[in-house]
């Protein structure tokens, strides 16, 4: 009985909408454009952010366990006594972690953490013939260490193995020094000690910094740079945005080391992403407001236009609640049809954008980006239709009949 009664309200709502076809079409298009813009904007910005974050932290550690108090210490003349030693960071006892195995084990056991590995860092020079080039040297442990930097995935030639004399070179260095797989070169440390190495593989990490790396086995780096422990323990987490919280949690547990997350090192990027999200939310908010106002005004006009009909329906026995429901239902229909149409339009816009501009990132099409605009549009439609609905409920049939 109840459901049957509702059906007449649906039927009348449908007829009211179909009768004012032009008006209905306009408002549906209005909602559709609003939903399309919302979907497109949020999918685009999410896609952009995902790609930015992937570029930033995809091939680098999310959390680093570093020696406590690793402040750059301005040194006096170095061991060689030369002036250029001024301003260089002294390799200090405190720049090492000695009991690193414990940290690696702890981190590896944590289900939130994808992989963890120790690393030994150094700064050296590659000598080849008369050419000398400054490089960042990383001593890694396979496979975890290689995977944090995605070296195995990004190797463009050679084999990504860290055997004793093998060095894996970033593409930029290899090009600059015209080194190919199998070539040999000298790597000198800051004290002038040299080792003779062979190019085992060349990788391309895309980002500029990554391609300036020389990766060796950790033991090789430790002996070359006289590190008895390791420089850091590095880890990647499953949810990149949880890195800061996880780092803080471990930071409280460990006393002799400090923990840094990628977020702390990329404050500017994060601020940028956040303001991007804020502006996107702001735009979406105003789109919703304009949709609501449009629905409220169109249905408000409709409620006035249909006064006669509502009056006669009430005289024939329609209740106040039914009269108001007729308008809420119109709102739901407008919102529903408009948002489905809008989503189709938004997908089309997104496809056009990706194909048309050749954007290096895709749209983020997720439950959130898909359903948020629909839910918001429906909600806006229902809220907006309460205004004419109330008017419809309050209308007295006698007013209509008395005034002809």
């Amino acid at each position, binding site marked *: 009985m109840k459901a049957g009664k509702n059906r*007449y309200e649906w039927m009348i709502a449908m*007829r009211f909408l179909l009768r004012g076809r032009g008006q209905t079409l306009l408002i549906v298009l209005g909602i559709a454009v609003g939903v399309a813009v919302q979907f497109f904007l949020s999918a685009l910005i999410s896609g952009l952010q995902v790609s930015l974050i992937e570029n930033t932290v995809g091939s680098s550690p999310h959390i680093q366990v570093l020696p406590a108090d690793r402040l750059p210490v301005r040194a006096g003349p170095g061991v060689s006594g030369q002036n250029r030693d001024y301003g260089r960071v002294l390799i200090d006892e405190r720049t090492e972690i000695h009991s690193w195995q414990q940290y690696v084990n702890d981190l590896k056991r944590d289900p939130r953490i994808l992989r963890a590995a120790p690393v030994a860092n150094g700064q050296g020079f590659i000598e080849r013939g008369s050419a000398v080039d400054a490089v960042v040297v990383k001593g890694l442990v396979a496979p975890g260490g290689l995977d944090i930097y995605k070296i195995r995935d990004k190797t463009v030639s050679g084999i990504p193995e860290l055997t004793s004399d093998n060095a894996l070179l970033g593409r930029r260095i290899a090009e600059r020094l015209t080194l190919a797989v199998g070539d040999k070169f000298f790597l000198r440390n800051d004290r002038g000690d040299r080792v003779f190495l062979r190019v085992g593989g060349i990788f391309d990490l895309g980002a500029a910094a990554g391609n300036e790396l020389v990766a060796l086995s950790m033991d090789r780096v430790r002996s070359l740079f006289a590190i008895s422990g390791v420089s850091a323990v590095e880890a990647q987490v499953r949810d990149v945005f949880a890195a800061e919280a996880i780092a803080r949690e471990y930071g409280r547990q460990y006393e002799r080391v400090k923990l840094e997350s990628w977020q702390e090192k990329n404050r500017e990027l994060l601020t940028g992403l956040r303001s991007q999200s804020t502006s996107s939310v702001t735009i979406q908010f105003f789109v919703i407001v304009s949709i609501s106002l449009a629905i409220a005004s169109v249905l408000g006009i409709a409620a006035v236009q249909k006064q006669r009909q509502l009056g*006669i329906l009430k*005289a*024939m*026995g329609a*209740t106040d*609640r039914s009269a108001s429901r007729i308008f809420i239902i119109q709102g739901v229909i407008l919102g529903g049809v408009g948002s489905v149409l809008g989503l189709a339009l938004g997908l089309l816009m997104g496809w056009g954008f990706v194909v048309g501009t050749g954007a290096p990132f895709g749209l983020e099409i997720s439950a959130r980006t898909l359903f948020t605009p629909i839910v918001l549009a429906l909600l806006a439609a229902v809220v907006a239709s309460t205004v004419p609905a109330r008017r419809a409920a309050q209308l007295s049939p006698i007013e209509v009949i008395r005034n002809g």
Partner: protein
Amino acid sequence: MADIVLRSRDLSKTFFGKVDTPVLHGINIEIVRGAFTALIGPSGSGKSTLLNCLGLLDPPTAGEIEFDGRLIRERNVNELAAFRNANIGFVFQFHYLLPEFNAYENVLLPCWIRGGKPAVETRREALRIMERIGVAAFKDKAVYELSGGQQQRVAIARALVQKPKLVFADEPTGNLDRESGRAVLELMSELNRESNISLVMVTHDREVALRADHIYELVDGRICKYLDVAKTGKAAAEAAVEDRSCTIK
């Protein structure tokens, strides 16, 4: 003792506004079941207001209404709406059909309101009524394509579809040309005679009123004349209706 379907006691109505306008003063009226009752009187005498009060569309300021022996107490508007739907049909001067629906759908609207999609039996009955009234031929036409007389007939079919106890008609021919007006009137008195539906009609046309079984004349919100045509006889009734003098009881 006549079978009374509707009775009012001391019914008064005042329109409140900047200046309060009393329209009805202590109306006592009895509507006999199955009879045709006419409410006549000059414009502004309160006929339509009385009809709307009796039809439970407009709440009276004072007094009570008894429907089928049951006192209609101050029910809320929604209960009254359901009560109207089940018991009362209306035919107004301006036919008030819904332009969003065709003729057949308009006739079925009270059934939709009552219980959702009408059953096959109800639809058949509606069609039968439309046939009787002579509008079945254009049941699928949009109402604005129909002539005034045809529209009013559709409105009559709609008023009858739920088999109400009472049909209220407010100047149903007022907006029609003479020819279609007469036809509509003819139809309404025929329907009244055929069925047990009581008909209460407001009219300012004395000729129309003379077709009725009972005539109430209103002047300035008071009943000044009551005629039971069967008792007084047609000729006496005619003379009484033509007599412009009025004794307020």
